[in-house]
């Protein structure tokens, strides 16, 4: 999987119809192509811009409501831009019984996430829980942009965020 991280502004600016047309050329415009098309847009932009949804609907001959319905059904799709670092905390059974929620809470506190939000104001971090990452033996597990970190603790997550914060400023 591509783990290249774009700056958010870059991501927003880079959504153009040219990209969508390239995707459509590859996938075709059958209804079965809808999910792969949305996946490509999500991967490129880190969310599904409204414009993209309208365009995909037109190209596939579907109503905007149908595309919106699919986009909101699956956890992979997001209607809001995700952060530069997408942190997934595994809350599968094994991780749950070994303490994933304290890690989740420590992380939310550390990046100052308000209640009900999953992405920070500065669009640096997105914090989500996922059902199972399939790495139960390392419980509790988190992934940051698909890089796996096992045996997580509240202290460890703070150290990781410190490191990411430094990297983030260097890049910007």
């Amino acid at each position, binding site marked *: *999987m591509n783990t290249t991280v774009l700056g958010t502004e870059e991501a927003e600016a880079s959504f153009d119809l040219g990209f969508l047309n390239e995707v459509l050329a590859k996938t075709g415009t*059958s*209804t*079965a*192509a*809808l*999910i*792969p098309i*949305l*996946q490509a847009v999500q991967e490129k932009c880190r969310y599904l811009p409204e414009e993209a949804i309208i365009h995909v609907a037109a190209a596939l001959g579907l109503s905007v409501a149908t595309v919106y*319905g*699919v986009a909101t*059904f*699956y*956890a*992979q*799709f997001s209607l809001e831009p995700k952060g530069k670092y997408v942190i997934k905390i595994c*809350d*599968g*059974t*094994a*991780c*749950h*019984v*070994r303490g994933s929620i304290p890690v989740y809470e420590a992380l939310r506190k550390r990046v100052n996430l308000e209640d009900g939000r999953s992405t920070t104001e500065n669009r640096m971090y997105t914090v989500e829980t*996922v*059902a*199972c*990452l*399939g*790495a*139960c*033996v*390392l*419980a509790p*597990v988190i992934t940051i942009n*698909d890089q*796996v*970190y*096992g045996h997580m603790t509240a202290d460890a997550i703070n150290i990781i965020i410190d490191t990411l914060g430094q990297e983030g400023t260097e890049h910007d």
Partner: protein
Amino acid sequence: MIKTRQDMITVQERYGQALQRAKARFVVCAGPGCVASGSLQVYEALVQELKERNLHTTVDCLLEAEGQRDGVITVNSGCQGFCQLGPLVRVEPEGILYTKVKADGDDVREIVDAMEAHTVVTHLCYHDPRTHAIMPTEQEIPFYKHQTRVALANCGIVDPEDIRSYMQRGGYQGLATALELAPEEVLGKILQANLRGRGGGGFPAGRKWAIAAAQKTDHKYMICNGDEGDPGAFMDRSIMEGDPHSVIEGMLIAGYAIGASEGYIYVRAEYPLAVQRLRQTIDDATKHGLAGKNILGSDFSFVIHVKEGAGAFVCGEESALIASIEGDRGMSRPKPPFPAVSGLWGKPTVINNVETLANVAQILVKGVDWFRSIGTEDSPGTKTFALTGEVENTGLIEVPMGKTLKDIVFTIGGGIRDGRQLKGVQIGGPSGGCLTESHLEIIVDFDSLKEVGAMMGSGGMVVMDENTCVVEVARFFMNFIQHESCGKCTFCREGTLQMLQILQRIVDGHGEVEDLDLLIEIGEAVQLGSLCGLGKSAPNPVLSTLANFRDEYLAHVVDKRCPAGVCHNLRRLVISEEKCRSCWLCVKVCPVNAISGSRKEPYKINQEKCIKCDACLTVCRFGAIEEVY
């Protein structure tokens, strides 16, 4: 290009000879667990060390007549199973297993030294925690000794990215055998073998195939269900990443038997490596003439596509999975018609789980009698489990059906961590049930688990000790299911929400005794009224914990106490008389004035006023505030 069985045997023999010419083969586990503990770095370090000593070689090099002899081959394999002790390195042909190998330090150098000197690096070998005996080979280690590997036969041994490595292990000979038979004969063998669906339900695969085979239509589909969504399960992932060809071969045989020419593998988006491996595997198989048009020179053609899921647990259910491939919301629909009659785009469709398909080729090669000799009469064969939680040896295991729960948890799993007490085993994930110590002697197969209110599920097995609160675990599963319910039918959509709210109330300390009967009443209604398997099995964790751990529920609702010490709102904060120095800090921070006392005597917390905000706990410098459960 492989055109005949003889071509396969030639590849098998040549590859085998190349392996024999090698001095050794280092198999570095690249399963998810080992990778996260740094096995890829170990692999690089091993290659580097071998290159410096001019010992490194490849299979291709050994296959050439002029190639280097006696070198060492290195392979990144799929999951070797003993994830607990990763990164793992196995040295063949001796089968020496090195555990917790580190890339930096002396480990890598010592392994290469020992290989050259025909000795063993004892400090990297498995030590039996009880007898302290050193066990250098897999065959000696109890974790491996009591397993029987069929679906995982190649996983952790073959090079998953080299089709020849799979052929060296006899791969694709099942397909060759199938193509020598008529489709009905292949179907007959799978029926006789009584291969039951490993995805959870245990429905005989052969019966599904037979229904689809009987349909007269222009097009049929074969789907491999790799949407392993059960939290706490990673068996299918390990097979797709570690032995992807076995899944493809199983699909090809199934496609031939039912008369399909097109197949889909639906894989969870959370498994990027599996997606990549499967795509490459299909390309390789096609290039070798083992997939695509006129397979092995026959009239049989079969194309396979990989479909990435988009993150919805319900898509593991057959009709929802089909909706998702068609580009729709993954919502289930009423059955019948069953997919085998009318499935993908209205055509007959067989959907089998990854592990089920990984068994198929071996049944054809080794025979029905061989398969039926493993396991129990009604559940032949083996089952893989992801053994996790508070057990000493966590990892990926495969056992014959009919082992007792005790064998799995204690003999293979090595018992409970740190000598604590076993409380329960959650088997089958959010659709399964929670077994207790009194179930240790039951045998694990499809039917006996159903009898005790659990189910095989896809094979997640989470061991819980005395520090796990079963009420909280039941709430956790209900929260998961409620979140993942597709919302189509009322019983699942509303029923699971009601059950979740009641369970939340109980763990928050506001539960009442009547809530327990209400949970059972709603649970039974959801089981009866839901449209698909997700809803029908959703109440299982709650109902089975209510049946097996009623006392613990009662402690929560009557005594407002959590015996396991997990439920945050059910603890009391008390001040230790010995430790309290009457410094007044806690009194100052308490927002509800619940703490009273004077300078001379220890302070006290008024439990009725206390809102458990932990302000006093944080501020006390003497550790005098204690949490009592």
